[in-house]
């Protein structure tokens, strides 16, 4: 017994010290300084600044609007793609190629991916050229520096997470259940909405919350595609550290961002637990 306790101590010594020294401690420093005034006194004032300033409400509003819209669009595009990969594609090599295409963006830097959109969405970029030459618009639209541009980039970055989460939920649904529903006379729409979708709803919710929390804390994509014209919460926090050097206020912004993210991830992992054991235990 005591020998195994010594072994456990030896095994855990390095990982625990590493995480304590360079993860728990730094975050504690930020937490403490977010409750500290410029004169070193304890205060709730830094959080008060966030809540009372209307500019910050605008930034928070923009951040949330972008996160909500990118989550919705990710579900609308991600569900059909997941369905296609899990249910429609029969040819294994093509599915494998599609999965590689799906995860390839996850293996490339946000910079490179956002950079691709900077080229595509410019005044003379491919998207505008397409829209103008096919007569959808009279003159080139402005995407860069607008919320639409950021939205296109965010959806692009986050979509693979949604497809993988929904796809995993979908792969666990037994097609025999759908077949039974069809045999009993339900149409394909009714089968989808009363059988398949409810069985994958936890996957959609979990994916949605992962995407939402990543969209809220995104920095690189909004920074590159906004051209400094639109500000989101992560950019505001970064400014406090990099140019304003107000660590107390920056700390309060960071902790706000962190609390949002942790709360959402917590809800997501709770929702992702399978709800219907009697159907899963086939």
């Amino acid at each position, binding site marked *: 017994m005591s020998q195994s306790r010594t072994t456990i101590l030896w095994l855990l010594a390095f*990982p625990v010290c590493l995480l304590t020294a360079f*993860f728990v401690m730094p975050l504690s420093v930020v937490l403490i*300084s977010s409750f500290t005034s410029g004169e070193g006194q304890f205060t709730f004032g830094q959080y008060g600044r966030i809540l009372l300033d209307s500019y910050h409400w605008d930034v928070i509003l923009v951040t949330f609007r972008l996160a909500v819209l990118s989550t919705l669009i990710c579900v609308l595009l991600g569900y059909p793609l997941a369905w296609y990969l899990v249910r429609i594609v029969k040819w294994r090599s093509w599915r494998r190629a599609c999965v*590689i295409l799906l995860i390839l963006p996850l293996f490339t830097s946000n910079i490179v991916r956002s950079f691709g959109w900077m*080229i595509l969405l410019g005044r003379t970029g491919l998207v505008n050229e397409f829209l103008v030459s096919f007569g959808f618009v009279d003159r080139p639209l402005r995407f860069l520096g607008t919320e639409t541009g950021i939205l296109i980039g965010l959806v*692009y970055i986050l979509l693979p997470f949604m497809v993988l989460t929904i796809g995993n939920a979908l792969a666990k649904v037994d097609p025999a259940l759908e077949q039974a529903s069809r045999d009993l006379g339900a149409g*394909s729409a009714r089968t989808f909405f009363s059988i398949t979708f409810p069985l994958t709803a936890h996957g959609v919710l979990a994916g949605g919350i992962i995407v939402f*929390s990543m969209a809220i804390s995104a920095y690189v994509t909004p920074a590159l595609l906004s051209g400094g014209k639109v500000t989101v919460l992560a950019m505001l926090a970064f400014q406090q550290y990099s140019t304003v050097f107000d660590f107390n206020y920056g700390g309060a912004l960071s902790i706000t961002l962190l609390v949002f993210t942790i709360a959402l991830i917590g809800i997501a992992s709770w929702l992702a637990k399978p709800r219907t054991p009697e159907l899963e235990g086939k």
Partner: protein
Amino acid sequence: MTMVVRLIALLTLGYLVLPLVVVIGGSLTDTRFLAFPPQGVTLEWYNVILRDPTYINSFMISALLAAAATLVAILAAVPAAIAISRYDFKGKAMLSALLLSPLVLPHIVLGAALLQYGASIGLIQNFPALLVGHTVIVTPFVLRTLLPQFSRDQVSLEEASRDLGASAWSTFFLVTLPQIRSGLISGAIFAFITSFINVELSIFNTTAELNTIPVQLFNYVQYSVDPSIAAVSSITILAAVAAIILIDWLIGLNFLSDQ
């Protein structure tokens, strides 16, 4: 109905691939400005990049940083995974939650925290400062892929090895390690990539001399866009393709299959 789903799915796949194709295409252009579709085909921009010492320097720093962070992460994650999967102790659930929590933390928050904390202990704008941050975020990747590799049946093999007189170390290297190898390799590749493409954490601790490839690209792209940037980006995309093929070959990519 199936046709509609197929159409949306294929268009969405196109949407996922388009920016990468544009970056690679743009890097081949003959013009001094970035053009897509490329006008003419040349590899000149790759030549420009490969002759630029600042890019080579950043590339070396990024590779060294990712390799070092992966190595330290393995040294931390392997013993942690053994402790979590082989022993019962108080606070085990909390410990694994702590060790995996950097996965969900916004990197920009950790970057800011490490800057502020590092400033007080002199760990700032140097290679160790970058290394500790990267190690913290990649350790959970290795741990997460390692944990499912430890199964109950291995215990009896390990016990047999000990009964036959092998030391704890020989048992680890000869019996345990070969069985967790595939998880270790894929975890290490994920860790390396995560470190190699990171911006949010590195950006707080990089300087003109100590710069990583993604941060250098980030700073450059904010002011100007030219084909040489597309060439650097293309190199990283091709490296990503190579990494995915490597993972597929080593462990098989069976996401989203029926089983």
